[in-house]
Structure formats: C-alpha cells, structure tokens
C-alpha cells in the first residue's frame, strides 16, 4: 500500500466513530500495536523534544526503506506516534519526505497540529522526515 492508500484507510477507519470518546479509545488502542523501540535506543538523543510527555523515535534503513520504531510515556501520545509510524514506516525516504499527511486534518486531530504544541504531531512528523533525509543517502 502506498502512503496515500494507507492514509485513506485511516480516514475510513476514523469515519465510523461518532464522538470523541470512541475516537480516543481507538487512538489508545493503536498505541498498543506500535512497533516498540529497542530499549537500548531509548536515550536522550532519540527523544522528540517537548515538555508534556516523552516520545522516543528511532529509524533504520533496510532494503532501501526506512523502518521506524518508537515509544511514549503517555498513551495518547503513543497512539498518535503509532498512527504516523503505521503510515510512514517501511517506505522509501523520498516518499516519506514528500508525504503531505492530509489524514491528520481529515480525522479531526487538528488540536494536535499546533506547531507550538509540545509533542504535537507536527514535531513528530518533522522528526520522521529528518530521519528520512538523514538516511536517504545511506546504503
């Protein structure tokens, strides 16, 4: 599935939820499927900077694709990073860099979009794209 196709699936998944509770319950569930970061990578340099909750993110390249693993100490944050990982992981660096990620707005998570919001989706997306850029040239 391409990034766009994965995004569409998420939009469809979210469309069945009527209220905030169902939506957040789903986000919390998603966190449980997050490919967890190896404990040895849970170090300061892999933390996405913020003051509200801690998110660790690690990326490696295999077979020309970028593979992400992550963790977070808050479970909603964990669900949000899981959502992004499910869309962007195991894709080519260029595809990650070009991804527009329109689904974030579509599924009504705008409140997490504010660029000033610590550990908001913007900071997570930025970090994932930085990893993609850094690993792009690496063979």
């Amino acid at each position: 599935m391409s990034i766009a196709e994965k995004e569409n699936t998420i939009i469809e998944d979210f469309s069945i939820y009527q209220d905030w509770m169902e939506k957040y319950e789903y986000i919390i569930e998603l966190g449980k499927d997050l490919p967890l970061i190896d404990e040895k990578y849970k170090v300061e340099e892999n933390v996405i900077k913020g003051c509200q909750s801690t998110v660790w993110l690690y990326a490696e390249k295999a077979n020309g694709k970028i593979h992400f693993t992550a963790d977070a100490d808050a479970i909603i944050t964990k669900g949000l990073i899981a959502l992004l990982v499910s869309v962007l992981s195991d894709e080519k660096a260029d595809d990650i860099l070009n991804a527009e990620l329109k689904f974030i707005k579509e599924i009504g998570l705008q409140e997490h979009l504010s660029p000033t919001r610590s550990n908001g989706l913007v900071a997570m997306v930025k970090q994932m794209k930085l990893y993609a850029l850094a690993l792009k040239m690496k063979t």
Partner: protein
Amino acid sequence: MFDPHIIRNQFPILKTKLGNYPLIYFDNGATSQKPQCVVDAIEEYYTKENANIHRGVHYLSQLATEKYETSREIIRKFLGAKHIHEIIFTSGTTCGINLVASSFGKTLKAGDEILITQMEHHSNIVPWQMLAEEKKLILKYIPINAEGELILTNINQVINSKTKLVALTHVSNALGTVNPVDQIIELAHKNGAKVLIDAAQSLQHFQVDVQKMDCDFLVFSGHKIFGPTGVGILYGKEQLLNAMPPYQGGGDMIKTVTLEKTVYNSLPHKFEAGTPNIEGGICLGKAIEWYSSLDLKSIAEYEHELLIYATKKINEIEGVKIYGTAKNKSSILSFLIAGTHPYDVGTLLNQQGIAVRTGHHCTQPIMDFFGIPGTIRASFCFYNTKEEIDFFIDALKRSVKMLK
C-alpha cells in the same frame, strides 16, 4: 453568602461551549478571565482615549495621562501603599522581579546572600541565579516538606547578617501553599535583609496590605487578577526605590539629557522608561477597582469551600495523590492519578470542555523534590461552582477509565 452564579454573568467567556460541553475553566492559576467591565474598558480606551501619556498638551494625551495616573492611585489604595510613587507599572511579575534583581542587585557585593525557597516559580529563581553568577553572590533556599510547606526550623541560621534579600512567593502556583510571609519578613528585617514578595498567586484570592505586611517589594501580574496581559506592578518602599539605580534607560525616565550626562526623573517614572502599556495600565486599574468592590472576605471563604469540596471529591477516586496538602492553602489542586500520565488526563478532560494545566508549572525544583515530571492542576476562582467540580470529577473518572 456568596453566590457565584450572579458574578458568572459578568464573564462573557464563561458562556463558551466546546462541542457539546460547556467550558469549565479551571486554569485560573495560569490566567484569570476578564469581567465585561474590563473588556469594555479596553474598547473604550481605543475608541475614546488613546494617546501617548506624560507628553502631550492636547486633550487626548491629558485624558490618557489622567486615566493612567488614576489607575496608579487605585492600585496604591488596593495594596495599602503609603505613596502613589511607590507603585511602578511593569509588564508583569517576571519583569518586576528582573527589575529588582538588576537594579537592587547593583547594590550587592561578592559574598552577599540571597535567600529564595524550593517552591519558587522559575521567574523567581532564574533572575537570582543570573545575578548570583554575575556578582558572585551566594544563593540559598528554604526547603519544603512532604506537605509542600516551608521548613522553617533552621530559619534563624539561614537568615543571617550576610542575607541581603529574601525573595519568596506568597502562594505557591504549583501546590497552593500560603506561606507565612509575616514571620519571614520580621526575621529578615531583624537581620537587615530586604524582602520581595511574589504575589502573582495571592492578591486574586485575598486582601494584602503592604504596609501591615511590611514587605520591601511586592510584585504581581495584571492578567491573573482580572486585568489585561502585559501589565503588572512592582511595589517598593520609597526609600529603597530612591536609593536604587534605574533599570532601563529611555524616554519618560529622565529629567534632563545632554550628550554628556542625564539627570533621572523622580519616582515612579525613574523605573518606567519608554512608552508604557497604557491600555494595560488603565484597564488593570479598572479590574482592581471592580475586584476591590467585591466582598473579598466572603470570596476567600467561598474559594476555600470550593477547594475543600474538590479535595474531598477527588480523594474518592482510586489512585489519586494530591501534591500540596499544606494547612494553609489557596484554591489550587495539584494531583496525579496512579497509572495515568498527566498529559493523557489533560487531553481527555479538554475533550470534555475542561481547562486544566498539566506539566511542571514552571516549578521544576518542586517536581524534582516529589520525584515526578509534573502534575494535573485545577485552580479555582470565585466564578467557579460546585456543579462544575461535580462535572469535573465525573469527567475525570471517565478519562481514567479510558486510560487504565
């Protein structure tokens, strides 16, 4: 008996709906909401009074100047200060502390001691650390106990002849503790030290008389006491302020300027360089006039009642731990729920229309003391109600259920 429902009508923002939920504003420690009369005063200023002050011969300038200086008098009266020129307009509490650190700080010398407490807001820690580093001063602090109260058993040794300034908060923004400032001021004065009181969290909850209290400096922010943002007050005793060098140089703070030498203006203008926040100053006066007209004693009683009610209710939730259980406490409820992250709880409360603050509240030393990264803080104002607390408790239970 104080009735919050009548006063609520004066706060238009409290009618806000967030989706299907009415706004429940429990983030009063961060900033207060503004009554209609303050909102009106802001509009009135820009539609009828706007001009630069202390300069013009024209009608508007004189009107704005008169309003600004009237506001200073309202604030003098509110604080019980002896002289109107002891009231310095600043941009807020942080600015007031930095002014004292920079200006009063110039009179200090290497080896002098400054005393703060373990429960200070970062804005009452960092300026002193910067000053201590620059002037080779010694910065000490009064520790806190598990209840979040100051430990004063060694205070007689800690405050000594080397102590030049004690800077402490009246009420802790993270724990709600009301500190025994009178006792500390008396002891400091006996040792020849001056005392700065951070009143950012106290004046909106109870009456303070600076002469009775006998503090040397007192600072607060307008926006936490029903006024606009970007304006605050530094109160200082006349003699001290006169002896201190100016803080910033510029217009309004001078008497005469030649290219060789400047003669500074007298108080309060000496400390008010540049065009001030005129609208803020005038509307802060309006806010304090409005607030002073209320029955402050019954308000304090009512807020205490809210705190007791919320504390009792929240303790019924399994795994709740309250941080800050001082005997003398203002209406701030800081807590954590075992097995949940404050960020998650805050996010889910927000979904239910409830505004609380989560995080370290700019008091990392307190969080370090308790060994926690942060708390969830509900801070109440007299426009809050017991019904809101009931709803908050239900929302909290719902959130915890989702998170566990």
